[in-house]
């Protein structure tokens, strides 16, 4: 269908009418253009209705498309809006006049510089700047803490979770549903309850129980790693079990009949096939740990603060666009994570012949 044909469709005519009404009502040029483009895109992108559709069906269809557009906008706009806001010159969370007029003066990267500078003893010194930044900058410390916790807990959660998923997906597994429910429950139990329990147990009850930790595990990295591993485990279980559900078990028997040991079978036959699921699970666990804040609020010491913990206190105490700059970095990271997981999922579906490719 060419563009000129599309213009003649009733959907387009309806859009024009709606735009005119919108323009008359709001009397703003920018708003009207935005309205037209916003609802025009889905109209042009969608397949047109069959020619026999009645007028009511057409109206219904276009209203449906418009609603869906608004919902997608609701989903994505808040996330995208923080990217330009983080380049604000002014210390506000909103667009200034200059930003709307696209004045280059109104944009700056000062909040990104602030990520490095905030908390440093001498941000303008030349000598020893790197050490100062690495050791003292508040946000840099938060990034270091977050990544350390996320990597450590991901390794633990993926190893333990994959082993358990291998057991759970065996047809002869006893008490399957009870054990699965137990292992998934950290995702279901409210974080406040988990964090409260860990605060009591790791802090007071474990005092003097663990050698090397006379004060228990509160305010230690070990305690936080245990907490984050617990919260990441359900995601590993879910993704790896899903991958294993499409796994052809006769491959294991084939490998064993050719004389391979259990270890060889796992590393040479099973693991290459479930690796996409394992990596997805690991990325889920990684992102869960990176995002987790309640356990950190309850259990971490001041210099163990992670990125979300720092954002939490920033949003409560002094709102500064530095938070938006950090948020932008996190959004870019989540786009990378999401892309990786999607590519893995498609690869795994292709391997199992579920998708046209």
């Amino acid at each position: 269908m060419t563009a000129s044909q599309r213009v003649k469709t009733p959907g387009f005519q309806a859009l024009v009418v709606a735009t005119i009404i919108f323009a008359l009502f709001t009397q703003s040029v920018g708003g009207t253009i935005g309205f037209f483009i916003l609802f025009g895109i889905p109209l042009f992108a969608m397949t047109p209705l069959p020619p026999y559709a009645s007028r009511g069906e057409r109206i219904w269809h276009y209203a449906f498309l418009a609603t869906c557009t608004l919902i997608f906008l609701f989903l994505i706009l808040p996330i995208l809006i923080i990217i330009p806001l983080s380049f604000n010159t002014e210390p506000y969370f909103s667009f200034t006049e200059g930003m709307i007029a696209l004045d280059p003066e109104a944009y700056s990267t000062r909040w990104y510089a602030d990520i490095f500078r905030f908390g440093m003893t001498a941000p303008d010194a030349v000598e020893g700047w790197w050490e100062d930044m690495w050791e003292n900058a508040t946000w840099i410390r938060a990034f270091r803490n977050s990544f350390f916790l996320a990597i450590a807990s991901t390794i633990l959660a993926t190893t333990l979770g994959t082993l358990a998923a291998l057991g759970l997906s065996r047809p002869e597994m006893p008490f399957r549903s009870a054990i699965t429910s137990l292992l998934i429950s950290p995702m279901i139990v409210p974080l406040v309850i988990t964090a409260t329990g860990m605060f009591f147990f790791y802090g007071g009850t474990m005092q003097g129980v663990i050698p090397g930790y006379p004060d228990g595990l509160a305010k230690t990295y070990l305690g936080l790693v245990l907490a984050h591993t617990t919260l990441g485990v359900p995601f590993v279980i879910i993704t790896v079990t899903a991958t294993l559900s499409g796994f052809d078990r006769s491959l294991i028997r084939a490998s064993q009949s050719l004389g391979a040991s259990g270890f060889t079978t796992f590393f040479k036959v099973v693991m290459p096939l479930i690796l996409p699921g394992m990596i997805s699970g690991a990325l889920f666990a990684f992102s869960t740990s990176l995002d987790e804040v309640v356990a950190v609020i309850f259990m971490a010491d001041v210099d163990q603060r992670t990125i979300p913990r720092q954002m939490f206190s920033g949003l409560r105490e002094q709102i500064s666009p530095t938070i938006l700059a950090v948020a932008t970095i996190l959004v870019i990271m989540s786009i990378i994570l999401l892309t990786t997981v999607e590519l893995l999922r498609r690869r795994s579906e292709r391997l199992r012949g579920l998708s046209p490719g």
Partner: protein
Amino acid sequence: MSDTQNSNDVLVAYDGTPLKQQLAKTTRRMKLRALLLTLPLVLFIIIAFVLPIGDMLIRSFHNPTGTNVVPNFAEVIQEWDGQDYPPDEMIKVFVQDLALARKNREVGKTVGNLATRVNYEIPGSRSLFTKTARKADKITEGPYLDALIKLDKKWANENVWVTLKRVTRDYTLSFYLAATDRKYDENENIIRADELYRIYLPLLYKTIALSALITFLCFLIAYPVAYLLSTLPLRTSNLLMILVLLPFWTSLLVRTSAWIAMLQTEGIINNIFVYLGFIDDENRIQMIYNATGTVIAMVHILLPFMILPLYSVMKTIPPSYMRAAKSMGASNFMAFRRVYFPQTIPGIAAGVLLVFILAIGYYITPALVGGSDGLLISNEIARHIQSSLNWSLGAALGTILLVVVLALYWLYNKLVGVDNLKFG
């Protein structure tokens, strides 16, 4: 076949044992092996997750403050029948214990701890204990009760002694009573708290109501989107799916800060409304730091958990069913209501339960955008653990919330099955 049957009557394995036994043995070994694979994680979860929650459960009814601070008195007072005043020799023990406790600086064993504990039961009685403890070593001879009353008239109140008897027991239900807006009266009967102090049950109802509202809004918004995604060609729907999954992968704190930027009075939505002329510059709408802010931000955050299960169910419904219904004369609405909608109910059940379970325990978003009237029960639990330091009450509230969530989880397991949880 008849040969083996005749020789032995039962089938035997290579080593002569009956095949049935051999099979049972192998099955048992396989089961054990499967169980062993899950064992490390099960042990880990029990130690790192189940025991801490058990610890919280115990703390909700076990509070040894009384026995820690006044150990001897805690033992003797239990023999008092609760009529009038305790005998003078018991009060003597109390005064001596108090004098000893005053010198104790160990956390959890100071007079202040006991005073706080009694203060939960009789508001405003805190100073009675600290004041009395300061002078306890001056009282050396009886009658001790009169000496105490001379110090402070509140000791003449029999309820103080009844309460003391109660708080010096290690196991108590008082925190569950407090968490459900109830208390003990002078005769140890359970009565409802004064109107002014009834806060936790209304808060629990409010949490349930707001979670239900959030779940309903999520359902309303997710249904059309999931339908659209399930009917589009795979390539387009995969592309649009990214718009659903990106929020899912984005940090909670990022999304909450984004909503602060959107909803604040000088924020983007208000600015657009002013620009479009919907509202005046003076009458900007207060959409954040109240329940509205909590609901909007939480709907956004929980929406993917509704869209994904709905989508995965709708994808399996063949479009020919709707066409068949229409070809047999059903109107669009009838075909939807009688043919399409019933088939999506499993997806609705999964999404609704999941979103409700997650919403009812939410903490971070209400804490940041909820102001004071958008706070949920989790925020109250966190407050008791972190600032008011009434840990037992926090634990009791947590236990109540946990019971609600576990009941819903059980229902989810029954209706949907945990195996059907999927992301993406």
